[in-house]
């Protein structure tokens, strides 16, 4: 599909790209990371559900296939443009309005730590219309309420088309809640990111 001018303008003006995903989202995360331009001129924040004590090599794997800098978040890291930040396992990631990350080890939300809702909710307090958020495949409802909060704050909110998601529940919950301004196919998500 062709994006209308309003969408394109909001995409181009956004300073932050937030992406949340769970079961079945890995491949799309990988493709997004691979296709992001060096001069995208946004802070990119990825929140993926991950298992505790599972010492994944996601950061390394993504780095090998990306042209832009990738970093797993450490507490109080400053937000930087043209950088992909990955939320670490076993912590929630929050955003401070002074422009840095704070981590939090409180209880899991939707059995998940990191929780997408926690980061989206915190981002809604800070970024307003300066943000684009995308919710991908997953088997629970984490992220739906956070996406709604972002939409209410003026962010451009997108859900992956549930018919294409390996696990439809997460994007479908967001759509049912009225949290998604756009529902995009996998192809269109990649197209928007390369715009």
């Amino acid at each position, binding site marked *: 599909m062709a994006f209308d001018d309003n969408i394109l303008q909001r995409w181009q003006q956004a300073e932050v790209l937030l992406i949340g995903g769970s079961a079945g989202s890995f491949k799309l995360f990988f493709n997004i990371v691979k296709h992001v331009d060096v001069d995208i001129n946004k802070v990119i924040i990825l929140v993926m559900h991950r298992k505790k004590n599972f010492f994944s090599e996601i950061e390394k794997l993504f780095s090998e296939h990306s042209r832009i800098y990738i970093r797993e978040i450490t*507490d109080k890291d400053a937000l930087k443009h043209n950088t992909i930040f990955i939320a670490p396992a076993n912590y929630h990631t929050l955003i401070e309005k002074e422009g840095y990350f704070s981590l939090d080890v409180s209880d899991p939300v939707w059995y998940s730590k990191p929780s997408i809702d926690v980061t989206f909710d915190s981002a809604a307090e800070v970024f307003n219309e300066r943000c684009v958020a995308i919710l991908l495949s997953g088997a629970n409802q984490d992220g739906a309420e956070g996406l709604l909060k972002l939409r209410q704050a003026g962010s451009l909110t997108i859900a992956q088309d549930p018919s294409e998601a390996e696990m439809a529940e997460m994007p479908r919950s967001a759509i049912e809640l009225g949290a998604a301004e756009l529902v995009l196919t996998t192809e269109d998500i990649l197209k928007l990111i390369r715009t």
Partner: protein
Amino acid sequence: MKVQLSGITPEELNELITLVKGVHGFDFSDYGKASLTRRVSRIMSLKKLSFYELKHRIVNAEGFFQHFLEEVTVNVTEMFRDPNFYRSVNELVVPYLSTYQHVKIWTAGCSSGEEVYSLAILLREAGIKHKCFVYGTDINTEVLKEARKGIYSFRKIKSYAENYIYTGLKGSLTDHFTIMYDAATIHSELKQDTLFSVHNLVSDGVFNEFQLITCRNVFIYFDNKLQERILDLFYNSLAPHGFLCLGSKETIRSEAFRKKFKVINSKENIYQKIGI
């Protein structure tokens, strides 16, 4: 389950901080705002309180502030959390501690005591427990009561046992507990030479000299300014060449402090005081 969307504005948060400081003497002004907002909003939503009602209870309701403190400070902990950290302590710090006649250790922000007992078990397995004394401190009197008991639900112990496997320590976690029905009690030998007491990192000072200080996943709730102030407290509480351990996603950012510590393990954030 519903998530709590934040219900408190930055102005209200500041008002609350001033109130708590004035009435109860606890200073949250240098805590990270995002996390504090989330915690306070959570209490309001769980208790169905308006901001006005919350303030009213903090001032007037007996015992409410203790409860507030318990909810607002995060008390999530585990035994052998981040197993690789314990592996590193065993390999890099224990050999050093073994050379001393007496070893004093401080776990700051110990919550319900899991980390203090994890260290006690590690020291016992290394054969140096008899000459070590471990202090656990927290600002919260309620969690310290739990810590002193050393009784954990069997469900928790099962997940702690999984951490234990990854530490590379010999034996098994349950060797150190007596399990009855659905609860596990830490062996009294491991409680010997441990002391749990109240200490507020924001307002209290140096109380002893230590060869090892651990303060893991506590700094994440403080802003940079407060982190530096507490680093200074830790620096002054460490013996020359003593070790400081932070959480695996925490780091010493200040240039001034980076010069005062040698990095022993950058991934697990183990530092050693450069002697003077």
